[in-house]
Structure formats: C-alpha cells, structure tokens
C-alpha cells in the first residue's frame, strides 16, 4: 500500500495518526510479514484502527462522549472494510471475536485481556 493509499485510508482519521494510530500501526506491521505488500499494510492498519477505536470508545471504562464514540465506530468500520479487502476468512473471524470478547467483558464489567494481545493473536489466525 503506497503512502498515497495509506493517506486515503486515513480520510477523516488524520488526527488519530499522531494520537497513537501510527505507533500501533508500526507495531502490527512487524507481525504481518507473511502477507504480500498491500495486504501487510491493510492488515496492520486494520489492527491499529481496532485498537484505537475501542480505546476511543473507552470500552470497559467510563462512557465515551458521542463524538468519540462515533469516531471509534468509524475506526471499527474501516478496519472491517480493510479486512474484507485483505484478510483471510479466518483472520476476519478472529478480529470479530477479539472485539466480541472486549465488548462482552465490558458489558459484564469484567477485566478484558489487552486489546493488542487479542489482535496480535487474531492476525495469526489460520483456517
């Protein structure tokens, strides 16, 4: 994925890039080396968007403000579209299950595993 494509995928989310999204992206980029060029970057960006999205929504903490919630929703939706483009079904399912775990634990007021841990596992899912 070229820088230009990356820019397009960050449309409306530019402010998040310097607010943790770029760090998370680089972290995930390091573990998706097996995927080919564009897919590597899409998978890493999807994982970073989920991590930042649930953080914005304060899942498990005090309720996010409506604008933060909506921005978090957009992060999750874009991640979902990137995964639809680039991930295997197994990885898509694993990502969804990671979010389900975080959300179900938040609803039950239980301590959830760290999002990054779940997402790193999701990236390694095999069918």
């Amino acid at each position, binding site marked *: 994925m070229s820088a230009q494509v990356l820019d397009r995928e960050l449309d*409306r989310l530019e402010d998040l890039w310097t607010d943790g999204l770029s760090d998370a992206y680089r972290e995930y980029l390091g573990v998706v080396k097996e995927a080919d060029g564009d897919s590597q970057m899409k998978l890493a960006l999807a994982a970073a968007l989920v991590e930042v999205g649930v953080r914005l929504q304060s899942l498990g903490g*005090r*309720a996010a403000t*409506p604008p933060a919630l909506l*921005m978090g929703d*957009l992060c999750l*939706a874009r991640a979902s*579209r990137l995964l*639809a483009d680039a991930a295997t079904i197994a990885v898509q399912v694993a990502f969804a299950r990671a979010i*389900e775990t975080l959300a179900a634990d938040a609803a039950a007021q239980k301590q959830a595993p760290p999002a990054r841990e779940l997402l790193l596992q999701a990236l390694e899912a095999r069918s």
Partner: protein
Amino acid sequence: MIVKRVRFETSAPTEFVDVTDRIREEVQRAGLRTGRVHLQSLHTTLGLAVNENEPLLLRDFEQVLERFAPSGAGYEHDDFSRRIDIALDEPVNGHAHCRQLLLSSFATVLVEEGDLVLGRWQSLFAVELDGPRRRELAVQLDGDFAAPRFSHAPEASDALVELELTRQLLVDPEPVAAPMRRLVEAGGKRLRPKLVQLAAGIGPRQEPLRAASLAAAVELLHNATLIHDDYVDESTHRRGRPTVAAAEGPERAIAVGDYYFAKATRLIAEIGHRRVTSTIAEALEAICASQIDDVALRGAYPGDRESYLRVVRGKTAALFSAACASGALLSEAEPEVVDALRRYGDLIGTAFQMADDMVDFSPTSGKPVGLDIRQRVLSLPLIYAAEDRVVGPEVRRLLAGSLADDDVDRVTELVNVSDALPRVRGEAQALVDEAVREIESVELDGLRPTLISLARSAVNRSY
C-alpha cells in the same frame, strides 16, 4: 393448474372493486411465471371488467349503468306475485341483472415474468351491481410455474430469519444478549432482512439458510447502529421501549453496540463470500461517516437539502442498498441485476427516510410529535419549512434558540401549514417511482411485483 377462490365484501349498491392487487398476489403466491389467470364471477349480479381506475370515470360508468337499466323502472323480475319459488330474502334487483348484460362474467388475464400483463392504465374490476354483499370469484391459474423457492414463500422466509435471530441471541453472553433481545423482540419493520431474502431468491444459487444467516446479520448490524445512535441522540425510547442507553447506561450501550457490530461482521465473514463481505463493510463505513456528518451538521440546524441527502444516503440508504446487492450476490445473480438492485435499494432507502421524517409531524402516527426537532435530527420537512417564504423566518428564529415545548409545538404547526410535507411526500414518491424503473429492465425471476410493492410500502405509512 391451481384453483382458488377470491372472497370479498362490497359496501355499496353499485361498486367497482379493484381486484388487481389481489389477483397479482395470487399469481405471485402460486409462482406462476408465464400463463393465464382465468376469473369467473359466481354471481348473476356481479360482473367483471378491465378498465381504468379513475374515480370520475367510475362515476361515469355508474351513470351509464343507471341510464341503461334504471333502478325501479318496473322490471317483471321484480313482480314477486307472478314468480314462483322465490326466496324469502329475494331482492328487488331486476335492474342489476339487466346491467350485468353490459358486463362479462368471465375474464382471462395473461401472465408474463410472474406478473399480470396489463397496460399502464388497466385495472381489473369486480363490478357489484346489487350490493352490499359478500362476493366470490373463481380463479384458475394455468401455465408454467417456477420451482418452489423460499423467496416465493415470504412467510417461511421471514420465519427463518426470526429463528436465526433467536438462535444467535441465545448463544451470546447475557449482558449483551438481553438488551439486544429486547430491542429485536420489540419489532421493527425488518425491511433490510426482507430485501436480503428477496434478492437472494433471484439468482441461480438458492440457499435459504445462508440467506437467512446474512439477513439476520444485517438486522443485527442495523440494531447495533441504532443502539449507538440512541446514545448519541439521547433518545429515551425506541419501538415503545426504553433504549439500551436509557435503561442500562451508556457504557453498556456502547459495549452492546460494539459486540453486535463485531458479531454481525463475523457472521457475514463466515458465509465465505468475499464480495458480500465487502459490500456490507463498505455500507457500514458509509453509515459511520454519515453519522459523524449528521452530528456535525446539527450546528447549522436545520441545514440544507444537499447536506441532508448526503447524510441520508450514507446513514440509511447505504444499508438498504447493501442488503439488496449482497442478497443478489449471494444467489450469484447477473452483474446487471446486482447493480440494478443496488440502485433500487439506495433510492428506496432515501425515500424511506423521507417518509420517516414526515412521521415526526403527524399526531396520528403513534410516535411523539416533534421528537426530531427536540433532538435536532436532520429532517427534510424542517429544511423545506425553514426555506419557506412565509413561515421560514419564524421557523429559523425558533430553531436558533433553545427549544421549549411551546416552541417545538409552534415549529410543528408551521411545518404543517407550509407546503413542506407535500413536497417531501412528492419527492419520496418520485424516488420510489425511480426505484421501480431501475428494476424494470432486468430479469428478477418473478419477484418484481414483490419488490415494487415493498418499495411502495416504504413510503406509504400512516402520517
């Protein structure tokens, strides 16, 4: 050959009962693709006719019948002293029998592509000549029938989706399942799953269980977005019940929305059709982006038509469109069919939202009047009222302030006296007409009448 009886009641001495839709439904239910419908009146004072359903013309017909055989003109049939074996309830109806001579007791209508072959202005009438009465038509359907398909059995199709929703909600952790179950069980129109199911019946690959799974996932996704919307809009009730945010707090609402967002995307991924997954994912992204725009536009409330349409196409129409396209993709329909249905969904989704906006100004809709105004939700009638030369200045002034109950009532009144509601109704109707045109030229395996009827029902609400 399928044999039926169509029963109905008339309400006037002379009445033109338009039975076109009833007969069309029988054709659809039977799955008749190409053939004929034969109708026969089972009464000597009930005729059949094919003509135009225009109220003044129908009055002309009545007058012609009256001139031909005036009532009370001294018919021998009505002289009971000269007749034998007359029933106790024998009516005085010589005129009605004579009028029947002008009509026919039989009609045959051709069927092509699963629909009645009627000209633009043609309707099929049962003509009551001696009402009011209970009446019956004998109907025979003859020709080539489609193989039985789930999409042609809407009740079974709907039941399968409900079953799938129940099944999915049974296996989820209770803290997320309970609030979603309340929302799902509270009803809703289920238009999106219906569109998925219908579109999934068009192509050659018919898999009812996969289609039901996709339809249920789309409904869960829709409900997940509603749960977050209700928190953002500070709504206290939805479908007559407290919202998740109001009942259980915003933290729970966010978690439940996220859970079902993820679960729905998982169910769709597990179907294993990449283009279906992408189609829904793109719609979801459009919904979320439009929701952000919607909130941003509330600063310049009530906004303008262009911004309104941009938001509505994302927030509402995107999922209608994706529901249609994904169902068609699942059934491996031809690309031109998928594209036509995608556009059809976009148009009826936009029309649906316009109709929904109008409900906010109706005291008979069953919903609280003026709720959209209080929550500063984008609304086309309000945009048009604010642009109105007469009431516009007052509408804009009221909306610029903090709205007390009296102000909301006044804005509602102003919208009602302006031409905003008829304008919106006209636009919604025009979009439905355009949607119907979109699906005119593609092969829809006999489902065109159902899709047309669904498009019309999207805007025909009780205002």
